[in-house]
């Protein structure tokens, strides 16, 4: 079990089974973890919300950004308004989370930022135009942000998990491409810990080998 004792973690998400599972796993590893839902897309809001979160605690060491986009439907069918809205809620929102999240992590001397997005953009997926665009965009955004931080030697690491279909409930076995919230939470906890201090810019599929079969 990874050790996150004395680390403060912020999970940028609405309350979901996945975000609660990640929070519980981080707490089990010793972190002080909380879920924060930033609902507005303005820079001022993000700046204020993350500043407030840092100042009320001893600083932030770990930020987990939930950004699994909705599918959006098939090319030729999905409308621009829906497509754009999904990009706004995942891709653009992730950029804001990165900009102000990195700022907060720098203020506390460094830390780890983890995007949790979809594996769909890796190989393409049917009837998922917006999900594929947004998630693969987030992959490149993650890498660029990681390299920007590395060049500044600011001790901020930026990584991403690409998750398959999240299956809620008890299962003895999972099909390729299916993962449990616990699988994701365990990977998050590892990347957030000091066991992963040399790891940045990593795009890590957590999809039970789903990508191998496509």
């Amino acid at each position, binding site marked *: 079990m990874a050790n996150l004792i004395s680390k403060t973690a912020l999970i940028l998400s609405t309350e979901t089974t996945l975000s609660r599972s990640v929070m519980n796993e981080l707490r089990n590893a010793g972190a002080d973890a909380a879920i924060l839902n930033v609902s507005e897309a303005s820079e001022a809001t993000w700046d204020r919300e993350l500043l407030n979160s840092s100042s009320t605690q001893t600083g932030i060491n770990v930020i987990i950004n939930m950004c699994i986009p909705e599918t959006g439907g098939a*090319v030729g069918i999905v409308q621009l308004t829906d497509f754009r809205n999904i990009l706004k809620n995942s891709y653009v929102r992730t950029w804001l989370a990165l900009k102000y999240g990195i700022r907060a992590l720098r203020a506390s001397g460094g830390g780890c930022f983890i995007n949790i997005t979809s594996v769909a953009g890796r190989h393409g997926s049917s009837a998922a135009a917006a999900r594929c665009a947004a998630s693969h965009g987030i992959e490149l955004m993650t890498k*660029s942000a990681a390299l920007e931080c590395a060049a500044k030697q600011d001790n901020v690491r930026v990584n991403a998990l690409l998750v398959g279909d999240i299956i809620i409930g008890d299962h003895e076995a999972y099909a390729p491409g299916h993962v449990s919230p616990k699988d994701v939470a365990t990977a998050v906890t590892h990347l957030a810990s000091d066991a992963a201090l040399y790891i940045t810019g990593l795009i890590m599929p957590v999809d039970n080998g789903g990508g191998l079969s496509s």
Partner: protein
Amino acid sequence: MNATVNQAGNVASLEGKIALITGATSTFGIGRISARAMAMAGAYIFVTSRDPAKGADVVTEITADGGNASFLRLDVTVEEEWAEAMELVRQKFGKLDILVNNAGNTNSTPIDEMPIETVWYMVHLNIEGAFLGQTYAWPLLKKSGGVILDINSGAGQSGAPGGTAYRSSKGGLLGLSRAAAVDGRRHGIRVISVHPGLTWTSGMERVRGRTQYDQDVLNVPLGRGAESADVAAALVYLASDDAQHITGIEYNIDGGSSAR
């Protein structure tokens, strides 16, 4: 101008095909040179951009080459203009065989100095522009079993400092191209993501300049940058029936850069 030659030793033909190319009027950009190359291969070209004066120049060039083309004013970020453009194509020919989503722009501002507006601009132009093209061309491409060539970049396959808006938008475009390739299978629509490496274009001249560019190309395994004609030759081949079994791939035209 380079020609593309198939296995039988013949130049790949686009005879009888109808093509629409966005961002096709930059002085020595990939779109403009590709428009001329595709016209020389026999396709009818809808040259599109926001600049009618330059558009007229490109049509004149193509006509002088012995090809056929007309200009359509099209800002790829405006949905209504896509609808009108495709309606014109439908009225004139009733089909479209080739869509080249070429219009795009670049940016390299560090994340902590960049405003959100820049991120949206890149989304609108580099992702939504291609999305709208795919969407509005889809019914016409279904009829002809056509092909979409999404012009991406080596920058859409790797991160770099200053890339959180531009490189991520090209990454988003790559994800979209893959989604469209999957959705296109049952309609016979091919979708190919094209990744030019360092290419000497009007945009490159503006953004990097010749001195920096000449320095950059020293790192290319083949020891030189690409010309727009290198990219145009690839597009003629990919759009032709010689490539009818090719879809869903990333086609790199980068002198070996991505092989490392």
